[in-house]
């Protein structure tokens, strides 16, 4: 356990020693804040129009401002997470630091978990940042806190699953760029599976729709935290980690 935390802490520090992490956080925050702003403005206009027709009550605030921002944030994560996760193992191999880790008394799973925990810590920081714009609604409106938190949890789980896929890709190659391309490709496929899934109502399509990341994430954005979706994300992440562990073990045998 001490080893896992030690690896994780070094990983986060290493990330923040490179301009990459800072740049990614800045880009992520800027774009999300802009989208949130745009969402709030269009909500205002819609409210005015809505009330002009003499309708009573209001439009759902959270669903029209926070949820779209978090939805778009997930797409940004799809682009950005491969850039963070690509370095996890591949970079150590390229820099020649891998032998120091691999000759330490650590099981492959310890290394994988340490790397992954480091990634999750970084992710927690990123998502903490993304929680700031919606918080500015509270003095002026009455956002649905439950839905907001469910959305954040969904984003965290989605990005965590992205990271696990990225870690698996990073374990499969010595070239971080290749790792990024692989994980981006896999994630995009997982994301758009639902396009095909929604096309018709056949059994295969239903299955594809189940595997689609987007469908599961949508539920969180609507404020629904269901065990089916939680299990989906946990399974996806666990598969990524197990793949990475298998790769590291096989590497010892094959060379």
């Amino acid at each position, binding site marked *: 356990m001490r080893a896992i935390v030690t690896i994780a802490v070094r990983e986060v*520090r*290493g990330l923040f020693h490179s301009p990459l992490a800072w740049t990614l956080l800045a880009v992520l925050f800027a774009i999300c804040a802009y989208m949130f702003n745009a969402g709030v403005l269009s909500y205002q206009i819609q409210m005015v129009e809505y009330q002009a027709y003499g309708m009573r009550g209001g439009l759902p605030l959270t669903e029209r401002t926070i949820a779209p921002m978090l939805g778009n944030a997930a797409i940004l994560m799809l682009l950005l997470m491969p850039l963070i996760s690509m370095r996890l193992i591949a970079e150590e191999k390229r820099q*020649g*630091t891998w*032998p120091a880790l*691999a*000759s330490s008394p*650590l099981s492959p799973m310890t290394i994988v978990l340490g790397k992954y925990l480091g990634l999750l810590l970084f992710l927690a920081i990123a998502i903490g940042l993304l929680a700031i714009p919606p918080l500015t609604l509270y003095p002026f409106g009455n956002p649905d806190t439950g839905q907001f938190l469910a959305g954040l949890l969904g984003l965290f789980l989605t990005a965590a699953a992205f990271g696990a896929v990225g870690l698996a890709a990073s374990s499969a190659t010595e070239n971080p760029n290749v790792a990024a391309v692989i994980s981006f490709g896999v994630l995009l496929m997982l994301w758009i599976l639902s396009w095909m899934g929604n096309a018709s109502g056949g059994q295969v399509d239903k299955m594809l729709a189940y595997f689609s990341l987007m469908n599961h994430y949508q539920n969180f954005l609507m404020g629904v935290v269901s065990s089916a979706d939680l299990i989906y994300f946990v399974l996806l992440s666990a598969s990524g980690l197990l793949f990475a562990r298998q790769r590291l073990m096989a590497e010892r045998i094959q*060379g």
Partner: protein
Amino acid sequence: MTETMIRISGVSKRFGPIAAVDGIDLEVRRGEVVGFLGPNGAGKTTTMRMLSGLLAPSEGTIAVAGVDVLENPVEARAKIGFLPENPPIYGEMTVREYLDYLATLRRVPRAKLTQSVNRAMERCGLTGVANRLLRNLSKGFKQRAGIAQAIVHAPDVVVLDEPTVGLDPIQIREIRALIRELGGEHSVLLSTHILPEVRMTCQRVAVIHQGRIVADDTLDALEKRAHGRSIHFARWRNLPSPEALRMVPGVADIHPRDEGWLIGALPEFDPVPELLRLSVSEGWDLRELTPAGGSLEEIFLQLTTREERPEEGEETTP
């Protein structure tokens, strides 16, 4: 002092159809510094990577301080410190952070961490640069940091893969002194193809060639194997024919090198006086007559050129 710290028995490593290491046996006792010699590609690095847990052997068993690396890989790695060919340096860390990090991963208790790191830095001459970023240090300091990480957790066995490559002569001397010092406390397996390094640091030598151990003995014994067989390098202005040289009593074989001849003597013969006499009487006009290479070099050449002779005049050592 006779406890076996490294026991490699019948170990092979195949990469596809190629056997990089082919059934080797090697033992290193506590406190010994063993030189692991061999030409490039002979299997030194593969053996060391197997020993350090980076690779699993295809066949055979390896035990580090009595722990089998296949049955109990994590525990075996706790007993080893490994410096790979290129020092495994995290550029964005300071020397102290780096050693703290790896010492923690190698189970140095929290209470002893500072003490262990300080001691490793002291031994490797890193105390003065403790708070500098590794990225900004010279190659020599990086190499020392690499050695420091291999000893920071006081492992029973230290494995060093070509620790002096790329260093300047002063650094090389310091690193060699350090390696000599490491023996006694740790068991050291040191790969190199610099023969004088072996003479200065090692008590025992194992020579690997084409994946097999072709010699494993103390330096003295290996040199006795040469058994008084002297080798000289001679250069004349009027180069005598090989036939004429072979006629000299005691001359066993000759090889051309650098516009002169390497002259190997028969055991317990000294052809030098006769060579000198002939140089004068035959008017060969001697320019140079020096003991060549040292017997270790000769042994190495004998052991590693059995199958294919090197090109005439080729230097096998840098």
